[in-house]
C-alpha cells in the first residue's frame, strides 16, 4: 500500500501526516507536489491542512485547479481512499468531490483547540476500527470550518449515513456548546457517495502519538489501512 501526501503551495501539515504514516504506522508514503497529475501508483491520498494559495478568493478555490486534483479524482474513481483534512476538506468541496462548503466560523475566531468527535458511522473505510458513537479527541485549527449545505443535501447526507463525525462533548453529547464553528448539524466530517472520500476539519495527524497529547486519530489511519488490506485480499 502506498500513500500520496499532496503538497500545494501553502500547505503546512504535510510533514505531520507523512511522519505519522511512516514513523508511527510504518506505511510507504511520498510527498507529492501539486504539479504532478499522476497518482496511478498510489492506493490512498491525503490532502493535508494549510492555506493553499493563501486562501485567496475562497479556501481551496484555486487549489482545485492544480494538476494533482485530476489524479485525486481518478484515484477516487477507481476506489482509492482520499482523506482531506482542514484545508484538504475545503479543497475537496470546491472540487465537487464532496458536497457543501466551509464558511467563516460563526464566532469569527481562528480556533486552535481540542475538539471531541462522535463517530456517527462505522460503515466506512475511515471508521471501520471505531466503535459506534466512539468519541475521538482531535484538535482543530481553522478560521473557516463552518460546514454548510442546503437542506436537501443535508437530508441526503443523513439518509445515506454519510455524516462521519459530529462535534460533541468529551462524554459524547452533541450540543451547541461543543460546536466550535457553527457547522450545520454540528458536522465535522462527511463521506462521499461511494464512501471512499472523507473530508474533516479536525486534524487526526495531530492526535496520533501519546507525546502529542493523544492518539485517538490513529483510529482513522488504522481504519484506512485495514480497508486497503481487505481490498487486496
Amino acid at each position, binding site marked *: 500500500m502506498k500513500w500520496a501526501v499532496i503538497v500545494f503551495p501553502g500547505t503546512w501539515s504535510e510533514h505531520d501526516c507523512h511522519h505519522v504514516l511512516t514513523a508511527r504506522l510504518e506505511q510507504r508514503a511520498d510527498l507529492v507536489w501539486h504539479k504532478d497529475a499522476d497518482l496511478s501508483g498510489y492506493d490512498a491520498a491525503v490532502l493535508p491542512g494549510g492555506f493553499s494559495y493563501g486562501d485567496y*478568493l475562497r479556501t481551496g478555490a484555486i487549489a482545485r*485547479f492544480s494538476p494533482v486534483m485530476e489524479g485525486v479524482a481518478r484515484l477516487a474513481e477507481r476506489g482509492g481512499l482520499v482523506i482531506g483534512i482542514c484545508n484538504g476538506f475545503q479543497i475537496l468541496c470546491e472540487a465537487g468531490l464532496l*458536497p457543501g462548503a466551509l464558511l*467563516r466560523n*460563526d464566532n469569527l475566531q481562528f480556533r486552535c483547540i481540542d475538539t471531541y468527535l462522535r463517530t456517527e458511522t462505522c460503515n466506512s473505510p475511515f471508521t471501520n476500527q471505531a466503535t459506534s458513537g466512539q468519541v475521538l479527541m482531535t484538535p482543530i485549527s481553522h478560521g473557516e470550518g463552518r460546514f454548510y449545505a442546503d437542506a436537501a443535501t443535508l437530508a441526503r447526507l443523513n439518509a445515506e449515513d454519510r455524516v462521519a463525525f459530529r462535534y460533541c462533548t468529551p462524554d459524547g453529547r452533541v450540543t451547541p456548546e461543543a460546536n466550535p464553528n457553527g457547522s450545520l448539524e454540528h458536522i465535522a466530517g462527511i463521506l462521499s457517495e461511494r464512501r471512499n472520500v472523507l473530508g474533516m476539519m479536525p486534524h487526526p495527524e495531530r492526535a496520533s502519538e501519546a507525546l502529542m497529547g493523544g492518539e485517538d486519530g490513529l483510529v482513522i489511519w488504522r481504519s484506512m489501512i485495514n480497508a486497503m488490506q481487505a481490498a487486496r485480499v
Partner: protein
Amino acid sequence: MTYLARVYITLRPDINDPQGLTVRDGLHSLGFGHVASVRAGKYLELTLAADSETQASEQVTQMCRRLLANPVIEDFRFDLLPPA
C-alpha cells in the same frame, strides 16, 4: 476591444453572515442604530478583451460560475463597462 467588468459576489440570502452581523453591531455602537442589516461580499474588477459586449458578458459569466463564485454559497452579478 477592452472591457471592464465589475463583479459583485455575495453570500446567498439564506446563509448566515457573521462578518456582516459584526459590522452592523459596530455601526450600531457608532450611533447608526437605524442600520437594519449588513451583508459582506467581494468586489472584483476584471479587464478583458472581447469582440463584443455579448461575448464579454458570456466570458465573465463562465468565469463566475467556474471560479469567482461558489454556487453552493454565493450569488454573483456584474456590470460591464464599454471600451474606454
